């Protein structure tokens, strides 16, 4: 009973999504979002009609106006500065646009552009002083705040009467102030468009990244050759322009050249930005944070005003909320990655059947022998981590290396070698197509092709994203092994979507169906995921009917067969259910059977722990990563099997001297070439009864 419950729990309860959600970058914004929701819930309970169309429209109108300035100061904060002068820039721009409209009766476009220019100019003063003269942002903008304010006051006295005794006759101007499109205020539209643009700018465009880079680490940005001074200066110009935009909408709404226009604005916008989670000191911030902060501060102040809260009480409430929100946000910021670490690993229930007999006993199908003891060694110490090996039509040998290169050993003696191509990521499974282009699965990068003239080309690094996926599974994280169909389509396995290549032991510990099989169709240049939720799918080989593949699920210790077309399309059948070790690559043998590499042997301790997910979860939370259990991959073997799942032959290196672990093998002209990801050599074994013309890859097979 409890076992059934346990099974159900681990089958349906999505443990993994909590860590995945927590790990999303937008989770940084969780605290402001929660604060905002609380604010809305609180005030709608306290105030009638708080969520009425009228009130929302009023609030959004003001929020959008304020939002422009918050966005501006956010850009400055992201670069690592601060702009206190926005309050005075706001006041001056308000005065100018009103004077243009009311007194000079300028056309709207003219008035708006002149005002935006003024904003840019005032921002540029800050920018030049701070960016080029390297003055301190806080002090400089504090002084310009005072200076601009003094100029405003001098002018205000002179022009206020003229402004308020004339009224412009401009319907467009009135629409800016009070109009709405589709019952959404004009200013909200304007702000929305700007916000989307700024979001794209910050997250997708080079110049936005420059801002973040300068804010994140000014020194490094400078050393990488970014024009730090210019970037800093321009951020203040942007802040000035955005403040001017805000002032224009404010002016259109209130038409007020009031003397204390903008008073205290610098405090309000700074508060909004910090409440949204934008950090003083730079490098962190997003448009969403600016918007959330703006909404929070506006809803709180408006809500308190509407509740007719006495001024003192509102200030106390405001201060308390500010401090609580900031404390929470800072705690969250500091501790989120710890929480991610604890929550991300989410072990699943994996019940491997026990082995009927000890694999090492003489009467087992896998009875050990020493046939790999005397293999010929190729490239000893010249190659590191050849996960897979493949040979071309001239018998030259290709293998990957940990350094991100493809190494070629020259036939016939394989004494000489060269770097065939530099990939940049670790090559895993490799194979040739009919034209002897080399296709390579590259860990962390995707599927690549090295053409005959050694050009490295990206084939695919993304597939369709699953609609329920939380982590972005459209990018290929760990493409592992591949095979090519006669028509050129490529099937390859991606071992896991939750971990990077070097984290494979953690994926083993999880024992969850994190992997998938993907098909790339060169005719349509389309990549689609064909099979999901596989437990570390690894080796892959096209079966004899060319309508199905055989693939290995490493931590599940099985070989399965999957039909991607034909009458059994979509079916998955078990071929070998209960291997004594963890299967890796599969390749064809000259006699129509298949070679399978077993990279390590199962142990009872690890099998037992796979049946106890709770134990593994406690382990992952309480112990440092290097003390976690990991599958044994110290010794392995090569197995020959047929499509019926019968074990035909086994090759061992019991002492583990030549091949402590084996991840692949390839039969070529009567020899078996052996690779291993932790080895510093390639093995070559003469096969006694093999077809000496057989070539497992390239034209021979594909054609």
């Amino acid at each position: 009973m409890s076992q059934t419950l346990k099974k159900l729990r681990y089958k349906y309860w999505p443990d993994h999504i909590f860590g995945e959600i927590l790990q999303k970058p937008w989770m940084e914004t969780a605290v402001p979002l929660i604060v905002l929701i609380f604010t809305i819930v609180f005030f709608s309970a306290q105030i009638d009609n708080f969520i009425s169309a009228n009130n929302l429209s009023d609030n959004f109108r003001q929020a959008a106006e304020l939002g422009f300035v918050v966005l501006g100061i956010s850009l400055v904060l992201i670069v690592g500065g601060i702009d206190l002068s926005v309050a005075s820039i706001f006041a001056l721009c308000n005065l100018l646009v009103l004077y243009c409209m009311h007194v000079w009766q300028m056309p709207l476009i003219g008035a708006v552009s002149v005002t935006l220019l003024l904003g840019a100019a005032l921002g540029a003063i800050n920018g030049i002083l701070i960016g080029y003269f390297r003055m301190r942002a806080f002090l400089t903008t504090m002084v310009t705040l005072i200076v601009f304010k003094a100029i405003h006051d001098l002018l205000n006295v002179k022009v206020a009467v003229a402004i308020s005794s004339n009224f412009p006759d401009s319907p467009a101007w009135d629409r800016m102030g009070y109009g709405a499109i589709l019952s959404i205020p004009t200013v909200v539209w304007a702000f929305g468009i700007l916000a989307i643009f700024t979001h794209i700018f910050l997250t997708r465009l080079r110049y936005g990244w420059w801002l973040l880079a300068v804010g994140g680490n000014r020194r490094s940005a400078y050393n990488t050759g970014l024009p730090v001074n210019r970037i800093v200066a321009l951020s203040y110009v942007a802040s000035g322009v955005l403040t001017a935009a805000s002032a224009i909408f404010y002016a259109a709404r209130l038409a007020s050249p009031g003397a204390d226009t903008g008073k205290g604005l610098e405090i309000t916008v700074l508060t909004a930005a910090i409440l949204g989670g934008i950090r003083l000191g730079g490098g962190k911030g997003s448009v969403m944070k600016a918007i959330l902060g703006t909404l929070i501060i506006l809803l709180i102040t408006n809500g308190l005003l509407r509740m007719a809260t006495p001024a003192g009480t509102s200030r106390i409430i405001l201060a308390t909320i500010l401090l609580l929100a900031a404390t929470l946000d800072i705690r969250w910021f500091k501790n989120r990655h710890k929480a991610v670490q604890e929550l991300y690993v989410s072990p699943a229930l994996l019940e491997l059947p026990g082995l009927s007999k000890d694999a090492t006993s003489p009467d087992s199908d896998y009875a050990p022998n020493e046939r790999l003891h005397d293999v010929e060694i190729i490239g000893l110490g010249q190659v590191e981590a050849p996960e897979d090996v493949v040979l071309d039509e001239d018998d030259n040998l290709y293998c990957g290396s940990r350094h991100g290169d493809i190494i070629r050993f020259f036939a016939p003696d394989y004494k000489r070698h060269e770097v065939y191509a530099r990939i940049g990521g670790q090559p895993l499974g490799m194979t040739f197509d009919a034209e002897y282009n080399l296709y390579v699965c590259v860990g962390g990068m995707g599927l690549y092709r090295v053409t005959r003239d050694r050009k490295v080309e990206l084939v695919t690094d993304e597939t369709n994203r699953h609609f329920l996926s939380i982590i972005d599974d459209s990018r290929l994280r760990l493409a592992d092994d591949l095979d090519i169909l006669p028509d050129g389509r490529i099937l390859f396995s991606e071992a896991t979507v939750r971990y990077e290549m070097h984290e494979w032991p953690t994926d083993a510990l999880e024992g969850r169906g994190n992997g998938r099989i993907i098909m790339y169709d060169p005719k349509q240049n389309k990549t689609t995921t064909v099979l999901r939720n596989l437990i570390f799918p690894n080796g892959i080989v096209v079966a004899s009917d060319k309508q199905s593949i055989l693939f290995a699920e490493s931590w599940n210790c099985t070989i399965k067969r999957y039909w991607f077309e034909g009458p059994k399309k979509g079916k998955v059948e078990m071929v070998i259910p209960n291997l004594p070790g963890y299967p890796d690559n599969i390749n064809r043998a000259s006699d129509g059977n298949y070679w399978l590499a077993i990279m390590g042997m199962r142990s009872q301790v690890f099998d037992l722990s796979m049946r106890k997910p709770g134990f593994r979860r406690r382990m992952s939370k309480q112990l440092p990563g290097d003390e976690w259990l990991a599958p044994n991959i110290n010794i392995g073997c090569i197995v020959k099997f047929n499509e019926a799942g019968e074990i035909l032959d086994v090759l061992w290196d019991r002492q583990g001297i030549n091949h402590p672990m084996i991840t692949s093998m390839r039969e070529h002209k009567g020899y078996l070439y052996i690779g291993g990801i932790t080895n510093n050599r390639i093995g070559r074994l003469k096969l006694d009864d093999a077809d000496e013309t057989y070539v497992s890859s390239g034209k021979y097979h594909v054609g």
Partner: protein
Amino acid sequence: MKLFTKAAMTAVTLLSFAIGGSAVAQQSINDPARDALYASLKDRSVVFVPVFMGLDLTEGWSKMMARQAEKLGYKYEVRNSNFNTAAGAQTITSLISEKPDVLVVQNPDVQSYARLLKRAEDAGIHVLQLNMKTNILTTGFVGADVVEIGETQANAVVNHCTGEGKSGKVLILAGPPTSPFSAYMLHGYENVLNGNDKIQVVSVQSTGAYESAKAKSITQVVLQQHPDLCGILGVWDNTDIGTAAALAEAGKTNDVFVSTSGGGGELSCKGIRENLWQHYVSYDVPGQARDLNDLILAALQDKNEVGSTKTILYTPLIEFTADNVDQQSCWTLESIK
């Protein structure tokens, strides 16, 4: 509320007596207007949007408005913008959609709320402006004629400083340069002083946001330059406490004539008695509040289109001097009954 129910009950009882027992000798007749009036006031709402609370002016106005509301059974609420014009604008904006019957607004200046107040009236809310009016007139305005305050103050200084042996040197301590209230008052000063040859205005300085510390230091500096200063014109009583402190420290309390103005609260009489200032122009907060209450009632009963009548009530000013201070009653919050 209770009072109202009681009154209504009594009225009903009396009415039934009147119909049923018309034979009774001594007839009692109910005022036919009052029931209708009280009924019409029920559940109406008045909202006050002051620039600030916590000072005698606004607290005095608000207390009297609240008392009348309580008595007559309509709702009264204060939404304090706390020296923040933007917050005030937000408040009025949301009030326009909340639609109270009467909106009483203390303007921070001539322009800031002008457009909003017009929108409020267009939306059918009676808007009464208090103390400072915008250049758009609404249903009503209650406040002092600020230019007249200035003229009254300046006349007093002229009277004192053009006498025998007086230097005629005058210091003007204005409010914020951008405040119309202060600008109007300066205009009043100029109206009187500019035409007078014997008067020399040695300095016109702003006390910032009516800061008494600033008034004090300006006075000290000017006293250094002009030890024979004769008169000081101050804009507001609370600020001029600083002015008086500077004079007291310099030992010039009896040499320099200080005229200031304010709402006539307890500070005004105290200042005269303690010789902080010798002349005080009061714009009589309780009187203003009474005017305001009248306009509120009128607005609540107004059946015409909002804004069809516009009433301006300038407050009669009262001058306090050492001679008449004992006959004046300076109000306190407690004295407003």
